[in-house]
């Protein structure tokens, strides 16, 4: 009887453990890191902490908060403002949206903004002394630079995972519920909404009189005059934001294809498949195009590839882990934040030589 009881309790315990291991408690699972940089520091949001890392040597300058809190999770790209703030919101049970001093990591606002009903995955947009912060509750919150709500939130609908972008007249905001909303900056109201027929996980790229949106396997141009049209298509799903450089639009798909599209002629310049699947947005820095490949098809490790403007591979560097975060540039260095790697951040020079790596101390 005792043995049977022991077996029964063990089975129940194993079941409980297996189920518990599925997720951290129901609502929030894990996600890839957020990344931003200025000339002095790189800022990485990696779950429980936001880290500031010295660009000179990869050492930790500060971390926020100083002690981990299970209810707080940071995954959004932190945003630096021109008046010296670093803005980020928590995607955990705690939905606080905060402002930090980029130099010290100390809180800058008297109190955090706590008015959102859900977590923060997207970065905010700062324009004309206002913070436009999209939340996963489907609302775009409007705050002043001290974190006070200055207008009713704009209801967009669906979970908002991507940062708004602006051409100075309108804000373009994509939503998971298939829609792109065009918001008038002067009135803070939605002027137009377009249902593109597929979930849009990334931000549009601002163009002339509109924005380029990547979703499903399509690049669509949403115009500021209440119109939209398909620009081109990819072979697989487009996850990251398209990048516009002059008249050339760069984007990548989950098959690992990288595309260069000439907007003036309406024709594709080239497409190459330099490595594995691409989830992150591409980074244009100097003469090079940086591709964060999720995982090399043979080694299954995240790989950074530098291409020239003709799509020719200049160098390929195995980083480790998986690369989902869009690389960032600071000075001569390119920063990558691999997911589930031995280190949280790595810096490479333009020749692909690793300058340093950053692993948070425990």
């Amino acid at each position: 009887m005792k043995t049977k009881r022991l077996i029964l309790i063990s089975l129940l315990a194993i079941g409980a453990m297996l189920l518990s291991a599925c997720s951290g408690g129901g609502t929030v699972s894990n996600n890839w890191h957020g990344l931003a940089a200025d000339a002095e520091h790189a800022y990485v949001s990696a779950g429980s902490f936001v880290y500031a890392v010295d660009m000179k040597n990869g050492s930790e300058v500060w971390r926020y908060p100083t002690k981990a809190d299970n209810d707080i999770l940071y995954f959004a790209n932190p945003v630096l403002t021109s008046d010296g703030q670093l803005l980020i919101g928590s995607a955990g049970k705690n939905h606080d949206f905060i402002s930090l001093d980029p130099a010290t990591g100390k809180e800058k606002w008297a109190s955090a903004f706590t008015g959102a009903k859900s977590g923060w995955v997207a970065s905010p947009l700062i324009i004309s002394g206002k913070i436009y912060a999209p939340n996963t509750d489907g609302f775009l919150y409007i705050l002043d630079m001290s974190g006070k709500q200055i207008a009713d939130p704009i209801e967009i609908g669906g979970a908002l995972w991507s940062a708004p972008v602006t051409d100075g007249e309108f804000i373009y905001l994509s939503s998971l519920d298939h829609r792109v909303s065009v918001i008038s900056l002067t009135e803070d109201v939605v002027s137009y909404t377009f249902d593109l027929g597929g979930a849009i996980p990334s931000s549009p790229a601002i163009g002339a009189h509109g924005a380029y949106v990547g979703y499903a396997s399509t690049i669509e141009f949403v115009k500021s005059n209440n119109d939209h049209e398909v620009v081109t298509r990819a072979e697989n799903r487009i996850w990251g934001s398209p990048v516009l450089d002059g008249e050339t639009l760069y984007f990548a798909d989950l098959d690992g294809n990288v595309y260069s599209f000439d907007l003036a002629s309406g024709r594709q310049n080239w497409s190459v498949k330099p490595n594995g699947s691409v989830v992150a947005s591409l980074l244009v820095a100097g003469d090079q195009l940086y591709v964060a490949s999720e995982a090399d098809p043979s080694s299954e490790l995240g790989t950074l590839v530098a291409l020239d403007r003709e799509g020719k591979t200049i160098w390929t560097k195995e980083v480790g882990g998986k690369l989902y975060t869009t690389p960032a540039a600071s000075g001569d260095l390119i920063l990558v934040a691999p997911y589930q790697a031995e280190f949280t951040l790595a810096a490479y020079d333009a020749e692909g030589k690793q300058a340093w790596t950053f692993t948070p101390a425990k």
Partner: protein
Amino acid sequence: MWEQLIIQPMTNLLLFIYDVLGHGPHMFGLAIILFTIVVRLITWPLNSSQVKSSQAMQEFQNDKEWQDIQKKHAKDKEKLAQEQMRLYKERGINPFASCLPTLIQFPIIIGLYQSIIRALSVMPLDMLKLARTIYPFQNVEGIIPLNSKFLWMNLGSPESVQILGFAVPTLAVIVALTTYVQSKLTMPTSTNPTDQSAQMSSMMSIYMPLMLGWFALTFASGISIYFITSNLLGIIQYAATGRANWSNLLPGGNKKTVAKKK
């Protein structure tokens, strides 16, 4: 292996049902209910064999010959085990047949939980995994993102209702209650005071409601919908055999039945 054999088929079946239902508000909750019914139908023969096996085991415990053997070889465990196996063979009883459906439930529960969390995609990484999980024939663009609302619940979060300022976990209570009712109904009556299977069943009827109630309290409410539906179907299935022991639901019900039988 787990991904290909459990998570992918389960997630796709769930999403297929959701898509057929028209993927509007409340439809994912309905999809979980229908999914549970499908799983129950698939495991119906297994559950039936469990019921029969439990009954055979129960009858065996009350068997006069087995009770005599127990008394005769009370001090010789080895001989007792040999005689038990001989009687099992003679009466065509498989002592492990009653455990199999319970064991099968575990991968289903774990798989369902992972499927629900993946399907609801609360973070970009979940959605990326979801996009890669969906079979090519499915209407990916129409399905994503899923509407996680069902009645008053968000299926991706643990459920509670505010009553007089307190967060009352109503689903966890219903899960514990239906699990208790199901285990009590299927609990056999025993005339044998040393009956191990009856003691085991009695223990299960306490542990299982507590454990599943705790799951419901802690995890996404979608899993609670599965537990409740599954429990109700289990009760209906057992009641349909005409052997449901309703008196067990009352305090001391089991003892009364035993006394009456004596």
